[in-house]
């Protein structure tokens, strides 16, 4: 927009001085870290004239919902698919489970998202086109398509590694023991799954960074007012303090999530619990 061109250079310089933007980048960064450590504050956003922490915290719920729903969906899709494929190894079911995620593997999230919107929201009108709706059920309703989009991008990796792992475990001696002991298939699957989960969880922990990164694009496509869209506008506005704040919260999020994943692996495997 051209409005904005007429801002006087003195004003800009003045604002930059006020916000410390006339300093070199590294100086800005160290002072950011210093204030962060000493006061827990992440500074003021240039574009929004508001506390960056307040901005991020305000957007956080939507992103957390999105990440949470996608994480759940990833598991809910991957586990049964991988299990089914492994149990039917070599059959057409297996091929199907292996090939279909391969197709989505090459589809960028924004494109899948767009197609979903056109299909399920615009044409079939099953889900909302975008944005969020109030209440828990409204949230779940609005998260359906976005989280499915993210989940689809993540599942191929998880399904493939999980399937391989389940196959390995299915061939393990202890499964034969349990079979020989006459345990029902359901109970055996539980044992197999628990033993297959570890590497998948580790991969999941690694992918979580991509998952959180993926929210940026998906929030954009679905018009969700989360941290991702905030970041996007912060980038286009060169709102450096805000970018720093978001990066920090993202890193915090990733650390928390990978800690949770580590705790989860600990629950699954006592060897992790005991520090191996």
């Amino acid at each position: 927009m051209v409005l904005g061109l007429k801002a006087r250079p003195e004003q800009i310089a003045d604002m930059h001085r006020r916000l410390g933007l006339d300093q070199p980048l590294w100086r800005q960064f160290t002072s950011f870290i210093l204030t962060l450590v000493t006061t827990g504050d992440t500074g003021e956003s240039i574009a929004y004239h508001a506390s960056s922490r307040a901005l991020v915290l305000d957007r956080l719920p939507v992103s957390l919902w999105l990440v949470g729903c996608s994480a759940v969906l990833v598991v809910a899709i991957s586990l049964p698919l991988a299990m089914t494929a492994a149990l039917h190894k070599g059959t057409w079911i297996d091929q199907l489970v292996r090939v279909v995620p391969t197709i989505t593997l090459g589809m960028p999230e924004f494109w899948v998202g767009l197609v979903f919107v056109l299909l399920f929201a615009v044409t079939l009108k099953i889900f909302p086109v975008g944005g969020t709706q109030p209440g828990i059920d409204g949230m779940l309703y609005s998260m359906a398509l976005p989280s499915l989009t993210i989940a689809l991008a993540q599942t191929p990796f998880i399904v493939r590694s999980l399937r391989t792992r389940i196959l390995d475990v299915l061939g393990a001696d202890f499964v034969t023991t349990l079979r020989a002991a006459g345990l029902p298939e359901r109970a055996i699957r539980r044992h197999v799954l628990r033993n297959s989960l570890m590497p998948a969880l580790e991969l999941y922990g690694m992918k979580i960074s991509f998952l959180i990164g993926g929210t940026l694009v998906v929030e954009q496509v679905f018009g969700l007012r989360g941290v991702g869209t905030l970041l996007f506008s912060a980038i286009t506005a060169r709102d450096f303090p805000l970018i720093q704040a978001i990066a920090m919260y993202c890193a915090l999020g990733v650390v928390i999530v990978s800690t949770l994943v580590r705790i989860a692996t600990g629950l699954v495997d006592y060897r992790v619990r005991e520090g191996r």
Partner: protein
Amino acid sequence: MSGDDNLIAVRDLHVVATADGRPLVDGVSFDVARGEAVGIVGESGSGKSLTLRAIMGLMPEGVRIADPAAVAAPSARPRLAMIFQDPVASLDPLCGVVAQVAEVMRCHEQGDSGHADSAPIGRLARRFSPSIRRESRRRAADLLISLGLPESLREHDRYPGQLSGGQCQRVGIAIALAVRPDVLLCDEPTTALDVTVQRQILDLLARLRGELGLTMLFVTHNLGVAAHLCDRLIVMHDGHVVETGPTARILADPQDDYTKRLIDAILPIPADPSAKPTGAAEEETGSTAGKGKEPR
């Protein structure tokens, strides 16, 4: 021995590789009578394990039984349980050993109590009821301790990785016993263990056989072990049974060429000069032989 008393009857069993139809087990037939202990010995790759697995109905991937009727039980299907070679690998590494034994116990009790539990609600209640879980855990711990595992298992469960090989093999035996089997199939259950532990396990199996009247089918490549435990031997070579008969007879007077070579290859351990020169006496002193000599 009447035919009805045979718990296992294998008739002309053929196992082939799925890929190329190569015969792996090529027309094996034998019976095992109730209460009998039969050993299968033979060269590596002769089809011993496959025969056992065929009886168990657990064929590994890549092979199949040509005629499934070959291993049909002659009378009512006996309960089978199996002990495997590698004691540690044959237990779920992420599941406590008491829990594993208890799970198998619960599963077989459900099966036993028949009609009353066929209702799904009953089954569910049984599966999730904490009291039933506690009870089965207690009995699992009892069983494990009676097999010589540490008392502390009552208080806290341990994972297979936290037990020694010999202890794991006992857990494997406990799992097999939790099935309350009529027939115990053992696939080289002691080769991975060192001699002292090996002897303990063999003693344990002999004792259980005496106490529970188990029928046993025992695969090994160690003729010594076979002689120690089995009434009768089946010698396999290249997918065929080459010789069968009472243990003592086969060892003393092998008929088949391969059996002869097998026995010939045994490395002897020089006899204890102080021992009484009779095999029978040796057997009676059994496991306490060492202690008897302690005073020296």
